[in-house]
């Protein structure tokens, strides 16, 4: 995020796209609700009606996968009506002309045909966004989990740059990070292309620096990203070390991945629980959960916060960092970290952006660190961190406009698979749900896998509300309960990815984004078939925002 969570309540315009905020980031949603109560305008662009759309000024009910059309058309309007921030474009950006050229043909009228959003709504949103000073964009996986995810992000940042909505409080571009520590894991360099602190793996100077620091030679080759590792599991990749991820539940097209895993020579897994992936392991290390260890998590707003050990791990389980030290030493290294604070100070030695942060500061400076954490960049111990980015100009020098054009998603509905399947999360479970599904209370709220289907599509297939169905794609099939829902558009279905007995990722497509490798969880073609089970009595409550049968709906459908 370029802004801080605390700035959201003061925003005047919020553009939420591809984020089911109230379920995936409930506390950020609270801040948004607060802004709306204060009089801010909220616009939600999402293929599903979600809770946030109930308090939105407008819900742009977009056809899945057509985001570039919407965003480029907004850019078109902003340029056409001269609502751009010329000063900002001149002083702080490059390449505006490219984008100007590229969006010429993206008229709102054409966009209407593709996105299903009226030209008028597109114009209104574009104007409102461009002319409101404190205007922020908020997005998550609905933008990135596509083959053209990176294009979506560029299209958004073009809007931000041309309106100069950056480097100010409550105005900026805010990806809401999914997991608790996505930010921290990336900062730490757990990526194939960066050393810690986003220093390039293929930069000779950086390599030399780390060779010196770590006292060993290092590989100059870029590594494989997760998507590539998974696709080459069993042939190019022969051994895996996996810490804290249930890849067989969370990765797309898992039946193919499982075949690959069976071909692997060796797999080590480090986990607090037996999960779907441990079936393939040769060795399993029992690890501690967050309450059993010290360390830091970094949240969406770049805030480094302490995780503190409250209880001992059960039996002989150990904190992940302790296991890692032992494993490295068993493999011939000579590591001797006594605690995570030492690891942190080694990390900051070679990463200037973080060098003002230490466990000690986080523990002792009440007010700036002890209770609230510190937001990086924070280059020296006398600084209090950075609330919003780009205050004094954009960090890479100038903001680069990137022209993008629409590319259709690789797998769209056809005759055989007539529906478009998207997957996502719900409020009551968390990802692979190894933790949340063990909570009795959460299980009461949501006990089993379901799909949301528009009543029209369901009736066409003879499927009743709450009936069991088979969901099939080119890659596999699963069973789940069908819930009539007007949250989804006709011809679209949606399902959560949390349930091991009905793994949505048996169905999903593993083509990745051309640059980031992020898989296309949000779009693939599927078909739904009635199953011959008699059991549709089961009482299930799919969440806070749900479908009710009503006389109006009956009328609408007949």
């Amino acid at each position, binding site marked *: 995020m370029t802004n801080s969570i605390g700035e959201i309540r003061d925003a005047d315009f919020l553009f939420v796209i591809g984020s089911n905020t109230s379920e995936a980031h409930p506390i950020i949603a609270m801040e948004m609700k607060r802004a709306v109560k204060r009089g801010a305008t909220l616009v939600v662009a999402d293929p599903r009606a979600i809770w946030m759309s109930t308090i939105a000024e407008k819900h742009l009910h977009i056809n899945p996968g057509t985001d570039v059309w919407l965003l480029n058309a907004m850019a078109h309007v902003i340029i056409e009506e001269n609502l751009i921030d010329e000063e900002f474009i001149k002083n702080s950006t490059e390449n505006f002309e490219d984008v100007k050229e590229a969006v010429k043909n993206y008229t709102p009228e054409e966009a209407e045909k593709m996105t299903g959003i009226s030209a008028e709504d597109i114009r209104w949103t574009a104007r409102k966004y461009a002319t409101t000073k404190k205007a922020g964009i908020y997005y998550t996986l609905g933008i990135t989990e596509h083959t053209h995810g990176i294009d979506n992000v560029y299209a958004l940042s073009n809007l931000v740059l041309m309106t100069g909505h950056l480097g100010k409080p409550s105005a900026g571009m805010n990806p809401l990070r999914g997991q608790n520590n996505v930010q921290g894991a990336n900062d730490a360099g757990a990526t194939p292309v960066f050393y810690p602190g986003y220093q390039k793996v293929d930069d000779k100077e950086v390599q030399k620096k780390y060779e010196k620091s770590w006292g060993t030679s290092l590989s100059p080759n870029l590594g494989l990203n997760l998507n590539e590792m998974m696709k080459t599991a069993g042939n190019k990749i022969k051994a895996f070390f996996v810490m804290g*991820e249930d890849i067989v539940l969370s990765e797309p097209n898992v039946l193919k991945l499982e075949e690959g895993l069976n071909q692997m020579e060796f797999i080590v897994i480090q986990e607090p*629980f037996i999960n779907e992936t441990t079936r393939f392991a040769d060795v*399993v290390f029992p690890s501690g959960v967050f309450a059993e260890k010290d360390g830091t998590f970094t949240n969406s707003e770049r805030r480094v916060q302490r995780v*503190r050990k409250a209880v001992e791990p059960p039996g002989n389980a150990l904190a992940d960092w302790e296991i890692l030290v032992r494993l490295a030493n068993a493999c011939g290294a000579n590591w001797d970290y006594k605690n995570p604070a030492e690891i942190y100070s080694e990390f900051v030695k070679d990463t200037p952006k973080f060098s003002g942060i230490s466990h000690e500061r986080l523990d002792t400076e009440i007010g700036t660190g002890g209770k609230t954490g510190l937001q990086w960049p924070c280059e020296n111990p006398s600084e209090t961190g950075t609330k919003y980015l780009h205050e004094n100009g954009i960090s890479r020098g100038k903001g680069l406009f990137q022209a993008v054009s629409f590319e259709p998603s690789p797998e769209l509905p056809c005759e055989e698979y007539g529906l478009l399947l998207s997957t996502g999360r719900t409020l009551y479970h968390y990802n692979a749900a190894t933790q949340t599904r063990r909570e009795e209370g959460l299980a009461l709220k949501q006990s089993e896998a379901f799909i949301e289907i528009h009543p029209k599509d369901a009736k066409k297939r003879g499927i009743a509300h709450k009936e069991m169905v088979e969901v099939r794609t080119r890659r596999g099939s699963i069973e789940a309960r069908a819930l009539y829902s007007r949250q989804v558009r006709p011809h679209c279905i949606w399902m959560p990815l949390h349930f091991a007995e009905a793994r949505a990722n048996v169905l999903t497509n593993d083509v990745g984004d051309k640059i980031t490798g992020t898989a296309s969880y949000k779009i693939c073609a599927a078909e739904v078939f009635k199953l011959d089970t008699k059991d549709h009595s089961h009482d299930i409550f799919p969440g806070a925002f749900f479908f009710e049968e009503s006389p109006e709906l009956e009328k609408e459908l007949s």
Partner: protein
Amino acid sequence: MKLKVNGQFVNFSEGETILEVASKVGAEIPTLCHDARLNPVGACRSCLVEVEGSRRLVPSCYQKAEDGMEITTENDRIERHRKTLFALYLTDQPETREQAEPHKTNEIFEFAERYEAPQNWGKMENIREDREDRNPYVNFEPETCISCARCVRYCDEIEGVSAITLADRGSKTTISTVDSLSLLDTTCEMCGGCIDVCPTGAMGEKIPLTKNAKHERELEKVRSTCNFCGVGCQLELNVDKEANDGKGQVVKVTSPPVGETTNDGNLCVKGRFAYEFINHEDRLTEPLVRGEDGQFYPTTWENALEVAAKGLLGVAERHGADSLGFVSSSRCTMEENYLVQKLSRAVFKTNNVHQCAAT
């Protein structure tokens, strides 16, 4: 703008309440219906103070500060008011403090003690209606409810779902839901905010109650960060240090005070209630190594580490370093991610390291 609190000048800006201004100079004013996140309603009368020139005592949580005001927060008149008020509140509470606060502090008793309110004014019969609710997390105790409506207002103003409401009238007033449904069957999102704001514990956590956890006072609070989503809410893990043969047990999770952290005193259902996995019987407690027969066998750390090291090094030797893949985790700490990438790069000489991080 400037005003005087107990003879001391304080600067303030437009829109601040007397309570807010007075707290800047550390004046202690008891409050029950007030919460910094909510619109003030001035319903409970516990925060009354004296304003020079005004005949009646005024509710400081509600009344806006004005330039030149002279405010007194402690004197005989205010003290008499407090004694009377809390003595009255006590008549509508259970007999003993133990009964009134099985697990959480009840502020009526707290204030009654602090202001030495008489405890012998008798007890009213409790006629508020109880309601069965099979929801797993939120417990409602009509006996201690004082109808301050903090829970109702929180649910409406902050969580925005209006799942609960004030029902009935007069001394029968109680907290209920539409058609007295279980919270599970309403718009409730189980955020537990109603529990957090309740001054008496009438809204309370069900899990520690049903599991007979120790009183809040005997638990140790450990400040940590939620391990679910990327908001990074700050939590207080409430730990019973003696439980679990001295390994300790998290028996409840609460939020840090309002205004102190990013989450501003709020949590969602996962942060507040999903902690029982920590102590779950399915937790792995021993390293496992697969035997010749394909089954897992528990083993020692020495052995498991040796097998793992041999296996990984063997593959590296046979097929080269780039035939290894390291999958790290965005659920784990920054420090652990740092170690995984260092393991992959410095020990095994490959950059094949990544985690599931799409945004």
